């Protein structure tokens, strides 16, 4: 098989790449190793409404809940409330990823991309020392797909970059190890996302509760890898749920790893581009990866559509993509990585003091960045190291 572009992975980043490239006229093949696109879910499913709307028309079939705001609860139980459109990348819609991911893949297919499920990439093909395609396995049968450019949209467990010599292995301090339950409980507030902070609750991370409508919520935990031990996330999540949702019924169980490494040194190699979690583009503070992945995918699709017809797919030519994402989403990823590196080592007393310092401040008017600015202003000594990042 021959084509212009192979996309490995049919998550949001891969499907957006495939869609944009196919719309621009490239012959695109998108591979998905799973039988079903979007399943199993490995995500808390929260996205910023405004950011998503810029890329795709909202459709009730893949929106579980439309949330009004967020509550952040400190270790001593003190709470701050932030309102809709202001709480940063993670408040807005709670998606139904099983449907959302498939709809995005459908859009790529409608644009002309060929989609192949149960097809696992096994390695890069080479011709005269440069990547010339992908060797794969389709329903257990080997398959070779020749293409001048390969997009690695293969998620946290990405191999495409490593085959091309890009170091993407995450250090324990650069991954959040996560577990999540879909819980049914009449006490769930269908309108607010909730975040719980504390070193006992979630070391180096947080617990979230994102409503899915009809008294359902994704209740999950992220623990920083360097503060985790075997099975820590599932153990702490079970304790949290027992305490906070004693009547809750667990309808689904999900686990996953979220890159929080900040921008890696390179996301391109000769004939290879990485996008989304594979490129470690998820947000180091929130852990959100959907918006950044989709945006990077659109950039990669555009760059591919421009360069493949010209035959310019060497690493140097692909710097256009590198520059595009680093100057846009890369800036907030870099900034938030610095903030995360600082926050993960705060004690519970520090966290309590920070939340108390917001007493009397109208936090409903702030977004995540605004919130950090106020925190720096109110806590100049504690947050001295953050000043240069925020102001």
């Amino acid at each position: 098989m021959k084509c212009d572009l192979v996309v490995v992975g049919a998550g949001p980043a891969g499907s957006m790449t495939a869609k944009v490239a196919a719309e621009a006229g490239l012959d695109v093949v998108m591979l998905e190793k799973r039988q079903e696109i979007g399943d199993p879910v490995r995500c808390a499913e929260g996205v910023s409404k405004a950011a998503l709307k810029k890329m795709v028309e909202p459709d009730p079939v893949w929106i579980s809940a439309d949330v009004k705001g967020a509550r952040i609860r400190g270790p001593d139980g003190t709470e701050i409330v932030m309102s809709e459109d202001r709480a940063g990348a993670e408040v807005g819609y709670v998606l139904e990823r099983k449907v959302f991911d498939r709809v995005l893949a459908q859009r790529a297919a409608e644009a002309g991309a060929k989609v192949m499920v149960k097809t696992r990439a096994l390695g890069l093909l080479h011709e005269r020392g440069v990547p010339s395609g992908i060797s794969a396995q389709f329903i257990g049968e080997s398959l070779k797909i020749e293409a001048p450019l390969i997009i690695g949209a293969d998620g946290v467990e990405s191999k495409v970059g490593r085959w091309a010599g890009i170091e993407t292995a995450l250090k324990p301090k650069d991954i959040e190890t996560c577990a999540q339950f879909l819980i049914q409980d009449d006490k769930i507030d269908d309108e607010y996302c909730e975040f719980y902070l504390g070193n006992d609750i979630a070391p180096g991370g947080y617990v979230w509760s994102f409503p899915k409508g009809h008294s359902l919520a994704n209740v999950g935990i992220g623990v920083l890898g360097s503060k985790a031990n075997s099975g820590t996330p599932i153990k702490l999540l079970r304790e949290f749920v027992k305490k906070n949702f004693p009547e809750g019924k667990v309808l689904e169980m999900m686990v996953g790893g979220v890159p929080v490494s900040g921008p890696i040194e390179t996301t391109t190699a000769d004939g290879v581009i990485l996008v989304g979690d594979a490129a470690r583009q998820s947000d180091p503070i929130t852990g959100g990866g959907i918006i950044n992945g989709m945006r990077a995918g659109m950039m990669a699709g555009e760059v591919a559509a421009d360069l493949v017809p010209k035959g310019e797919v060497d690493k140097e030519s692909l710097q256009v993509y590198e520059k595009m994402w680093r100057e846009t989403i890369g800036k907030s990823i870099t900034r938030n990585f610095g903030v995360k590196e600082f926050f993960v080592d705060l004690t519970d007393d520090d966290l309590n003091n920070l939340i108390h310092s917001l007493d009397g401040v109208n936090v409903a008017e702030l977004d995540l960045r605004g919130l950090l600015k106020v925190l720096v202003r109110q806590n100049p000594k504690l947050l001295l190291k953050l000043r240069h990042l925020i102001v």
Partner: protein
Amino acid sequence: MLSVNRYKCGYCGACVGVCPSAALELVETWIEVNDDCTKCGRCTKICPMGALELVKEAET
């Protein structure tokens, strides 16, 4: 050797993401370990389910 408890594993691929020697692979619903594994144990600590364990060869 690295032992994967398939009955605990949630096949999320977090272990694959941290493996320094690219010895792990997530294939649909299971983890494969190849000979490049150096038994460094990084994956065992970050597994959210506690499904990975380093066991002494003699015990297997």
